[in-house]
């Protein structure tokens, strides 16, 4: 009997947890007019991980992103300049960030643009990374899901443009 309850509770918890995630936000907005959308699946990440050269960096310093790529399970990007969609997207992202265990990693405001970085995970592993950038004319939502090493992610993001 107890086992039955535990199974039912787990199933319902799973359903609730999936009710609003990056994938559902992507599915909701990706087909709308005026939205640029990019999705990279886990199988594509596996193929990317097998590419011979997987270092990036614009300023001479090459950064190895293999440790990150190999742990990613999904990449979602949405970009739009439609004010109506921006309002709805912002609302849905707020809902996603409010329901989960996301923490604000960093907020930057400059020249009318607000960029927020959020992570969901623990001290060592990031299960979901979300970036929401908004200015007067456009909004960009980027989400990466997986089991990402926090140190490697932070090091990579800090070094890419240095």
């Amino acid at each position, binding site marked *: 009997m107890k086992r039955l309850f535990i199974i039912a509770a787990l199933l319902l918890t799973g359903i609730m947890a999936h009710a609003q995630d990056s994938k559902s936000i992507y599915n909701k907005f990706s087909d709308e007019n005026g939205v640029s959308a*990019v999705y990279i699946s886990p199988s594509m990440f596996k193929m990317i991980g097998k590419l011979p050269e997987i270092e990036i960096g614009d300023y001479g310093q090459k950064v190895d992103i293999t440790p990150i790529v190999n742990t990613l399970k999904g990449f979602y990007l949405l970009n739009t300049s439609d004010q109506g969609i921006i309002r709805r997207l912002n609302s849905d992202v707020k809902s996603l960030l409010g329901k989960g265990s996301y923490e604000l990693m960093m907020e930057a405001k400059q020249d009318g643009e607000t*960029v927020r970085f959020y992570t969901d995970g623990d001290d060592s592993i990031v299960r979901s990374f979300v970036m929401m950038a908004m200015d007067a004319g456009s909004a960009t939502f980027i989400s990466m899901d997986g089991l990402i090493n926090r140190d490697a992610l932070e090091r990579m993001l800090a070094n890419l443009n240095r």
Partner: protein
Amino acid sequence: MKEKENMSMTELEAIALDGSIRVPEKLRDDIRTELDTLAFLAETPAARPHRFTRIASIAASLALVAAIGFGVDSYRHRPKDTFSDPQQAYAMLEASLSYMSSKMEKGMDSITSETGAVLTKTTEIMDKLN
């Protein structure tokens, strides 16, 4: 009369089917009571599910159906890869990571400049006090 312990099954059955032999009234009642008791005992809680158990079973079944339904729905509505070529996907990923990195760098710069301004202000106040 032959002892009933020594009778064969056929003999016992023949006696049982003999309508002329009357069962004593008390024995009949005792047998009925015994049979009713056995029937009552046979109705164990497991055979007669508790109402709470039944509700829990229904709830668990509904959750299972919902989970299966959600799984099927999720499978059907999974996003389609934007790129079929891993090189293109990689180029996109690189551009996105660089974009995020530049935004993060701006954030770090603004934090540094804000912290610097606060430190300068604090130093000025300390100098005036001294």
